């Protein structure tokens, strides 16, 4: 057994980036770098998986605790009516919001950095898919109040973000406004979402160059034309995030 004295005088082991990545101790820059490396370096990716497996036992040992209410009905409601699985899930979402292009694209979503094709394309194409190394990312903005979900897509190649409203109409005399909320920061207005079609906008700088992002997108209900104050004034109707699902 290694006693405290011995352990602190023994030579320090080399950095174990995979272990540190899985523990979550890396600062933002190093973490980002490691996330990128995950996608390109199979050996590193395998190391990360090994550490995930090793440390997962800590999770298994965490005490079980029932949520204070049954969350299943809410989860069920958030699932699409379509039962066709992951492919149909995205397709259903996309179709529901008129986001046909996304349904035709191979939606490549990063699985902790490993690209995985979740939806395979039906080639009834309107636009050509982005190159595989330039994944199109999709975020579902789930309803918070009210029935409407939104789908946001990031096209990194063209540097365009598209946000499409769900089927429910915008209430009369109101507008739906999109916000970007950086971690620990104040919401920044991105513009009003038309009630009948998708909003296209230049990709915000903040989404530059990473697969995963902690930035939250939220939609609030505002007076017609958008918030008069530059800050959200009405209830948040939906929110979500581009993430490495």
């Amino acid at each position, binding site marked *: 057994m*290694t*006693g*405290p004295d011995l*352990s*602190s005088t*023994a030579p*320090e*082991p080399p950095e*174990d980036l995979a*272990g*540190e990545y899985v*523990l*979550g*101790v*890396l*600062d933002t820059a190093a*973490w980002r770098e490691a996330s990128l490396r995950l996608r390109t370096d199979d050996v590193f990716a395998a190391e990360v*998986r090994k550490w*995930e*497996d*090793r*440390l*997962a*036992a*800590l*999770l*298994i*040992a*965490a*005490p*079980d*605790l*029932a*949520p*204070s*209410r049954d*969350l299943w009905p809410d*989860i*069920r409601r*958030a*699932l699409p009516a*379509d*039962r*066709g*699985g*992951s492919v*149909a*899930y995205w397709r259903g979402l996309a179709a529901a919001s008129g986001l046909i292009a996304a349904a035709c694209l191979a939606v490549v979503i990063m*699985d902790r950095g490993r690209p*995985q094709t*979740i939806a395979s394309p039906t080639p009834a194409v309107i636009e050509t898919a982005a190159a595989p190394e330039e994944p199109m990312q999709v975020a579902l903005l789930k309803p918070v109040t009210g029935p409407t979900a939104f789908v946001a897509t990031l096209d990194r190649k063209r540097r365009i973000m598209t946000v499409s409203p769900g089927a429910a109409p915008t209430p009369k005399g109101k507008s739906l406004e999109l916000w970007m909320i950086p*971690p*620990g920061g104040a919401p920044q207005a991105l513009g009003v979402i038309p009630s009948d079609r998708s909003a296209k906008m230049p990709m915000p700088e903040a989404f530059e160059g990473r697969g*995963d992002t*902690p*930035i*939250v997108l939220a939609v609030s209900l505002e007076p017609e034309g958008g918030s008069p104050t530059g800050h959200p004034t009405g209830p948040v109707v939906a929110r979500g*995030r581009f*993430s490495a*699902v």
Partner: protein
Amino acid sequence: MTANTADLDRARLSRALERVAGGDAAALEDLYRRTSAKLFGVVLRILGDRSEAEDVLQDVYITIWNRAGSYDATRGVSPITWLATVARNRAIDRARSRGLRQTKPIEAAVDVADSEPLAFVGLESADEARRLKACLEALDARQANAIRTAFFDGVTYEALAARLGAPLGTVKSWIRRGLAGLKACLSA
């Protein structure tokens, strides 16, 4: 509980995941019924706030719905380990997205460090948990504590140093020594 029961549980969860991957919402409900207490325990342990944890737990099952197809039983990872990892990643994403997490007292119920895992987890995972626990106990207590804290709080070296009240270099050394020690112990 016998090994057969454990195998059965593991097989049942694997099958449920397969059906979820095929778009079977009833299978997801079955999975929710079997695993939500386990996964809620994980998420709450990380977030420390019940209502936030419940919110994230919903996300966890929606993520499972989307990603069930990427669970690969042949890789040797037990389904509950995979599910728990999804839950932890979701919870840590949330903790990070709200910025520097306020240290708040974790509810007493969550503070019980080492309760026995539920039966459905299966003997194999329970064995893994015991083994890891033994290996953590074999480490210098400060190293083990740093690893536990980092793992459950999802905090960076810097925040960890502040939390543990130790210099950054010392904390890095604890973590690196601790990781090396664990790796050696677990592969022994």
